[in-house]
């Protein structure tokens, strides 16, 4: 557990440093700001029950899910409701994603060609699960604008990075330090998706938005809303929990 505690301490230190240093006069470390934002849900480890509502032109459905995470690399989520899809599960280990399908009792690894595909029928893609936490590695970040209350940060893909977006723009509130909105642009730099963060709450020592809304802009009547409930941080989880065997377990 020592390594984790060390990470927490260093994270906290970094956060404290950032908060104290983030006066306009001093250069902002955009990189760690984004990393902090992207990792806020996870902490060292986390557990949550989530509700995902997906609305499309043809159907609307609500999924109840249970999710675990460890650092930025490990992530396991299992469907609880509806009954038809109970125990359908997704495991992410670094940049790989597997799905477990209880109906046929098989684990399926998502091939690279399908990473852009929808995750569990939502407007979140498999790529989002994998890449979102690596924004600071795959993109060049710069401060676009700063107001009294907000930062606007632009992310442009690094030349060699295999990414799907042409540009990402973060709107981050200064206090509490939470994201408010993320805009995704395609390769032609047309804005194609918006993510909104709402319902900011105190969870343990963290302040996090508990609701995430994804709006695909080319389909105005469609959306995905993800709500976190019973969010708990810093559980005693390690890498062995995020195994293919555990993916199958019910």
């Amino acid at each position, binding site marked *: 557990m020592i390594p984790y505690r060390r990470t927490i301490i260093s994270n906290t230190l970094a956060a404290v440093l950032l908060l104290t240093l983030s006066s306009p006069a001093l250069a902002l470390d955009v990189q760690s700001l984004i990393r902090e934002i992207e990792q806020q849900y996870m902490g060292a480890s986390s557990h949550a029950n989530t509700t995902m509502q997906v609305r499309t032109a*043809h159907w609307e*459905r609500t999924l109840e899910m249970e999710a675990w995470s460890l650092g930025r690399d490990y992530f396991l989520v299992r469907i609880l409701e509806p009954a038809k899809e109970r125990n359908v599960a997704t495991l992410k280990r670094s940049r790989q994603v597997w*799905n477990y399908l209880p109906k046929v009792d098989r684990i*399926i*690894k998502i091939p690279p060609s399908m990473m852009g595909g929808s995750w569990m029928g939502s407007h979140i893609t498999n790529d989002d699960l994998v890449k979102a936490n690596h924004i600071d590695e795959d993109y060049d970040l710069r401060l676009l604008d700063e107001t009294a209350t907000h930062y606007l940060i632009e992310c442009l893909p690094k030349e060699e990075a295999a990414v799907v977006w042409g540009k990402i723009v973060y709107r981050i509130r200064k206090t509490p330090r939470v994201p408010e909105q993320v805009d995704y642009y395609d390769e032609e730099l047309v804005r194609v998706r918006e993510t909104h963060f709402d319902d900011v709450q105190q969870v343990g020592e963290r302040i996090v938005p508990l609701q995430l809304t994804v709006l695909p802009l080319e389909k105005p009547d469609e959306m995905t809303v993800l709500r976190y409930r019973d969010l708990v941080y810093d559980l005693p989880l390690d890498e062995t929990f995020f195994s293919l065997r555990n993916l199958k377990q019910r």
Partner: protein
Amino acid sequence: MLLTLAFRNLWRNQRRTLLTLSAMVISAALLILALGVFSGMFRDMLASATEQYYGHLVIAHPEYHLRRDLFAHLPDDIADQLALQREAEITGQSPRLRSFGLLSRPETSQPVELLGIIPELEQQVTSLQHQLTSGHYPSAKEHNGALIGQGLARKMKVKPGDELVFVTQAADGSIGNDLLIVSGIFATGDSRHDNNLVLAPLLWLQQVLVLPERIHEVAMVVADPMTAARIADRLATDLPEGVGILDWGDLLPEMREVIAAYDVSRMIVVAILYMATGLGILNTFFMSVMERTREFGILMAQGMRPWTVRGLVLLETLLLGCIALVIGVFCGAVMTLYMQQVGIDLSGYITPVTYAGGTILPRLHAVFEAGNFLVPAGMLLLISLFAGFLPANRAARLDPVVAVRDL
């Protein structure tokens, strides 16, 4: 009288006339053969695309072809509703449901296109049952038997009897997934189908996609593919709202272009080859007219009008053209017949080539098509007249006083 004279004149220098005649016959016959083989190649291409996958006519939601939208579906008894079985020209029809998803084994996953079909009906439209490399065509009894392409089978390392999982997004938003058992493996030579296509029972796919009693299209075949567009136009007038019909030309626009361009390229090929032949004819008749300067002079001195002289020479070339045409068309037809019946197998030297949505098979094989005879025949007569025109003009312009002195 003029005709007899022209005919006799032709044979005054037998060797020269025969040489020219043989050049004309050979070029006409070879052209007819070559065009027959071209047509055979296009037929193969069209047949490969339609018999491997598309069919000649497709009934679907008007939007379906553009976006392959899962939700642009039709009731699965649409063919009965439209009373398509009463159309005598339609020789086969197959209802299909289509899904794009992931075909998976423990070690590998591949994105695939899966067609839900009714085996007895699908075999009326596509001919994959004749292109099996192992296993058998799924029978109606196998509720989850699948036919998969050879390239796909190789990538996934499966053989008949093996299990596969198909995963896709169902119409209710859930993750549609179920097991398939490989019944057979097909190889068409078209890599897009061999590497990507899976055929599975319609009922099975309707359950996976949660689209009971729905289909995306009815694929149909007609006796003569060239009439498909006309039949589509006729049927289109009776279709209800939300149902459209497409012919193979709409589904394979490149193929339609290629076949339409063939009419132009045929003219070009004919023109180039005949240009050479035409020069030969021109040469023959110039020689012939020069030799007969004195003769023409005498004829004109006796009162033959320049127009009659011109007509005489033109008649000679036209006669030669007609003779060449009869023999050439006959020889061409015989060779085409041979290539149609026997053909030449090239599979030892080249592999199938995919082009404009179809597959060019490694064989030379000819088909009979009226245009392949009419165009070379008509052009042969035209070129004869054209080549005769200059010598005829020269003969007609002779001054009898000068001409009779020519020796």
